[in-house]
């Protein structure tokens, strides 16, 4: 009935889109990404951190995390070597070979940060990917089946939403012991319901769109509509959420490690590194500052990327 006459031709028939088709669509997205400073800086940070984490064993000596005996708290070539020896003070940043300084045991802080990165990223990715998979599967089933199944899934997520985030993880770790699998599961348990809700609402909205009905009228089966049309069309916000959550999971996981749930005193992890540095916070603040800064940069990278992707996929901007 309603006829909305779009008067202003905002519709972008851009020069970049003259050659149409799927390839130009991707090209167009890349063009938008290049134009968007958020995505650019975000992807530099995110991809950079993934690369460093992947190559950490090659870039630095994996043994640099171990205690250096005898403690080399004196810095090489340090003019104030005697002063340091007298005060047993961790090596400050800026000393040759120790760009970020060293801790009280003489360990190179930069090396430790590089070695601490992989575990955070690995665990974060595995948590987000599992939560994503569970969420999309359950959300799709709930939204598409409807009725009792939907109700059941919703109520289960209700229960998990009522749990205070970190606390369920604390309880689980406390009860089941401190190993990385348990830690991962503990965070996953509080993380997956969000994806179920998000996917469900997306699919419900998508299901109501006329094209789904058009497909039904055409004779397409339920599964065909769901898998070939509705899920691909509703997945983008979930992907954005996943990108944003990689940073969030890193923060949560490192908080757990910071709070003392690390499996061993030698677990190479950034939150653990911060908590190790606390005893020296008044003499050697860099031991707290730099590992934390590393976390900030990694989390920021993924958050920027997620924000940017959201902007790019924003239909108002796009169509």
């Amino acid at each position, binding site marked *: 009935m309603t006829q909305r006459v779009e008067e202003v031709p905002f519709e972008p028939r851009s020069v970049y889109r003259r050659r149409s088709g799927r390839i130009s669509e991707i090209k167009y997205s890349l063009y938008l990404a290049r134009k968007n400073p958020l995505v650019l800086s975000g992807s530099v940070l995110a991809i950079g951190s993934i690369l460093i984490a992947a190559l950490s064993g090659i870039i630095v000596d994996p043994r640099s995390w171990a205690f250096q005996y005898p403690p080399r708290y004196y810095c090489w070539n340090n003019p104030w070597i005697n002063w340091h020896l007298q005060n047993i003070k961790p090596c400050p940043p800026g000393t040759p070979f120790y760009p970020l300084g060293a801790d009280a045991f003489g360990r190179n802080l930069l090396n430790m940060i590089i070695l601490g990165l992989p575990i955070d990223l690995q665990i974060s990715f595995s948590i987000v990917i599992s939560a994503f998979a569970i969420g999309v599967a359950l959300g799709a089933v709930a939204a598409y089946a409807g009725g009792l199944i939907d109700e059941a899934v919703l*109520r289960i997520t*209700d*229960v998990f*939403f*009522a*749990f*205070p*985030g*970190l*606390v*369920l993880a*604390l*309880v*689980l*770790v*406390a*009860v*089941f012991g401190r190993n990385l699998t348990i830690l991962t599961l503990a965070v996953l348990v509080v993380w997956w319901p969000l994806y179920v809700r998000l996917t469900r609402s997306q699919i419900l909205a998508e299901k109501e769109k006329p094209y789904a009905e058009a497909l039904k009228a055409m004779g397409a089966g339920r599964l065909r509509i769901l898998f070939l049309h509705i899920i691909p069309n509703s997945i983008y916000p979930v992907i954005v959420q996943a990108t944003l959550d990689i*940073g969030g999971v890193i*923060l949560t996981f*490192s*908080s757990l490690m*910071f*709070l*003392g749930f690390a499996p061993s005193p030698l677990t190479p992890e950034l*939150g653990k590194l*911060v*908590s190790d540095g*606390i005893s020296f*916070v*008044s003499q050697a*603040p860099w031991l*707290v*500052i730099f*590992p*934390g*800064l590393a*976390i*900030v940069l990694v*989390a*920021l990278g993924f*958050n*920027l990327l997620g*924000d940017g992707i959201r902007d790019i996929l924003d239909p108002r901007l796009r169509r």
Partner: protein
Amino acid sequence: MKLYEYVIRRLVLMVFVLLAVSVIVFVITRGVPSPTYALAPYITPRMTDPQKLQTAVGLGIAEPSCPSWVDFTQSAPGCITPLYVQYFSWLKQVLSGNWGNSVIPSIGVGQSTWGLFVARFPYTAELAVAAALITVLFALPMGIVSATHNNKVPDHFSRIVALVGYSMPVFWLAFILQIIFVIYLTLTIHGNTFGLLPSSQTVGTDCALCIPNPGNINTYTGAPILDAILSLNPAYFWDALLALILPAITLAFSTLGALTRIVRSSMMEALRQDYILLARSKGLRERTVIYRHALKNALLPAITITGLILATLLGGAVVVEEVFSWPGVGQAALDASLFLDINFLELYTLVTALIIVVANLGVDVLYAFIDPRIRY
């Protein structure tokens, strides 16, 4: 459906959610670890084994037919009461207000868990409310300015602040603030250090840096600032306020991002709406257009987030409380999980779950008052 009908339905649903939470917590805490954990607060080293077994039977954990304490600790068949029976007897106790005793050394072994929780909760509440207030006070203007100056300097600024707040680990920010204020600036007022509580109000926590505060403080509510106001003690008020500032700012900064983002996007959405064009076409002032027409519509999603933020904060900010030695429930929960004080963990989880569910309901009811379109 009428509003009260809706609320009743939600309350019924809420009871089920809380029961489910209690089942999960109970199974995790009592079904998995050694059966002796649940007994820890009630047995002393001097007890003989039969006495211990008797205590276990009395608490409804062991079957009366269990031959010996050794059999019990080894979970011999027929010795441990089935979990569901345990659950119902536990539920009965809990509903009558008996949450058991504590085993946390830093808090006091053998104290009543409920009493402990009640003593600590006001601290958490004070911190949570302060942090939520700071969040709203900063996020609202930042989000609005960001939306009205889209893609200009104020927008970039507040987006960056929000993003950085989003990406910063709370424990790290807490230390950075402490390094700046306590170590480098050595800011002290009234002889008190920023971010640390006056010792007279701490509940047996490790508080080496706390400076004793003389003064007549009556504990009316248990929350330092409120007590200071109620006992008309300005010096103590300042001390308590100083102690609150850093932890509250830390918490607020971490929640600021989420709220700013929501306010910004919903405000932008509202400003894009047709009714804004009509309001402008009526010749209204830009101020009226933004603050009366757009903001009222944009407020709805912001309220949801604020409610959620407040609810999670009331559940205790474990990390911040730990770093600032803030004697709230979050810190106690951390200690409880380190010492496996299952009584406290159960109480804590259930209360926080209750707070979250109630907050959600509150937000939904508030919606109905703000948005005339919503009818339940």
